[in-house]
């Protein structure tokens, strides 16, 4: 924690700001990329959102009130930037946010990166059947390894609600993966 406070001081100091910011990019670039990628799905969109996130972080550093950790604050910015992009795409195509997510998931199944292994397909199908909120909470907990409290801060929902969402999602995934197994 002391390390983080020192680091924030460096980020705010005109003398050390630039060096500290390079370090911040090194530390968080990949984590934020994967967090964003799961929300916006395509690599191109994730790249745009990642750039915007760091630009916003750089410009807003002076207004960071340190009420949450730097880690949580950056995830929140990345999350909001992802929503902004999805909203923009929704307005452009005049379809709902859930449709955008669904469309993204469909495109992911056609992605060149997906090698089509059984576990991937099962998991993707199970994830696509979750509600938007459940999917986001599950991904943040399972893949991003965030704490319930951190997810609650990022999504601005109560911690208990986050827990309920997560455990509900886990149950749903287990059930759906079993169903897929039976159908196959």
């Amino acid at each position, binding site marked *: 924690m002391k*390390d983080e406070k020192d680091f924030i001081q460096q980020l705010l100091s005109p003398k050390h700001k630039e060096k500290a910011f*390079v370090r911040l990019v090194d530390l968080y670039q990949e984590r934020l*990329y994967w967090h964003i990628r799961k929300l916006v799905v395509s690599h191109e969109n994730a790249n745009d959102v990642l750039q915007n996130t760091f630009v916003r972080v*750089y410009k807003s550093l002076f207004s960071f009130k340190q009420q949450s950790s730097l880690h949580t604050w950056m995830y929140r910015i990345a999350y909001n930037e992802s929503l902004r992009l999805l909203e923009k795409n929704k307005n452009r195509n005049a379809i709902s946010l859930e449709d955008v997510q669904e469309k993204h998931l469909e495109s992911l199944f056609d992605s060149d990166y997906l*090698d089509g292994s059984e576990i991937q397909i099962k998991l*993707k199908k199970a994830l696509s059947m979750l509600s938007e909120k459940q999917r986001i909470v599950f991904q943040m907990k399972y*893949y991003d390894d965030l704490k319930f409290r951190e997810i609650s801060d990022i999504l601005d929902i109560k911690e208990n609600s986050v827990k309920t969402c997560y455990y509900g999602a886990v149950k749903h995934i287990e059930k759906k993966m079993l169903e897929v197994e039976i159908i196959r």
Partner: protein
Amino acid sequence: MDFKTTHNASELKRLHQKELGMDVPEGYFSSSKKDILSKTIYQSKRTRVIKWMGASMSVAAAIVIFVFLKTGTNKVSDENQILNEFDNDVLISSLFVSNKKVDTLTDVYMLEGLIDENDF
């Protein structure tokens, strides 16, 4: 220093690739880092240089205007000074004219005046 130690970068990549089928182009993160820094630190440096140049040019322009105005004012004041010196010289030299000469001059002036009046 690392604030989150559980999932490191390579583990994250493996997890996303293996379980979600997501991957990134080769060398993406190094090129992305360059893009981010060019939009943040370097952009801010560029803005600072432009602002500094703008400020310098404004100062230079102000100096040029000041010098120009100052030179113009000096020219005018030089002319005034010459006139003042001339006036002073005239006043000073008039002090050296003898009373006798002044009386003669006054007499001649008055005499001429009288002659003129008689003519009409």
